[in-house]
């Protein structure tokens, strides 16, 4: 727990200082007091865990965001092409996509990635699948989602990975 508290402390301090940019001792000490308060509240709420400070997977998550951004650009172009074409031919489809992620974090990451990609929106998240509405029929092939599912699970460090399980 001390690990998570330390990580959270550094993350909050960095955020506070980047946003404020203050250097006066009075304001800095006020910031330190706020940090201490937040940490005490988090400890009392018992949320100092992997979900609040998921630091082990930051590099993976950033790499995943890079990959996702490329996918988003491709999907944007596909959607915009339909929108600006004169007859605007679309083929809305509902699909059930199997969700392989086991943790809530992995499922959230996967469902959010689907929604973030234009042309697909996640409507309902169940235990083992996600109901997806796709703008074009060709966007709803389940095998296309398999890669995103695997990559998003990897990005948050699935608990199959013993290194991550230890932190749960």
């Amino acid at each position, binding site marked *: 727990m001390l690990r998570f508290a330390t990580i959270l402390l550094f993350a909050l301090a960095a*955020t506070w200082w*980047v*946003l404020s*940019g203050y250097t006066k001792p009075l304001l800095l000490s006020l910031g330190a007091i706020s940090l201490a308060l937040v940490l005490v509240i988090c400890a009392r709420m018992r949320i100092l865990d992997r979900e609040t400070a998921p630091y082990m997977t930051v590099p993976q998550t950033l790499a995943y*965001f890079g990959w996702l951004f490329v996918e*988003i*650009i491709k999907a*944007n172009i596909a*959607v*915009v092409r339909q*929108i*600006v074409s*004169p*007859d*605007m*031919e*679309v*083929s*809305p*489809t*509902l699909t059930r996509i199997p969700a392989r992620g086991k943790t809530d974090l992995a499922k959230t990451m996967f*469902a*959010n*990635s*689907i*929604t*973030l*990609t*234009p*042309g*697909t*929106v*996640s*409507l*309902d998240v169940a235990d083992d699948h996600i*109901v997806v*509405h796709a*703008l074009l029929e060709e966007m709803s092939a389940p095998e296309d989602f398999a890669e995103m599912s695997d990559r998003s699970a990897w990005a948050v460090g699935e608990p199959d990975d013993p290194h991550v399980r230890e932190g749960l």
Partner: protein
Amino acid sequence: MSLATLILAAEPVAADAVRAGLDWAVLVENALDVFTVAFLLGGLFFVLAGSIGVLRLPDFYTRLHAAGVTDTLGAELILFALILQADNWQVVAKLLMVAFFLFVTSPTATHAVAHAAWRAGEKPRLGRWKAPALEDEG
């Protein structure tokens, strides 16, 4: 000055530019402006396309997809253009944070809206759909 001499020695074309009085700082600044305008125009195009899609598409769910275009490429391209115009690292950091939070929160908001419609029993229109020809519209 030493930089100018280096370039004079290395690159005949650049040497001409230096002799002609080309100021490198001005050049970089203009390049930034050119990229800014390009990204702004790109962002505006995607925001406009998204808005047209929201107006033209047939039902609630398909319109959500068009709104997604505005949320993602439209907003991020405009933010990137603003980053190029930032005066100091703090503004850059803040804009990067805005971009990141937009990246994380906009799908959550879209999902909340879509999930609410789904739970309330809004039926998506499925199957092929084409915009009616202009003369058919009243």
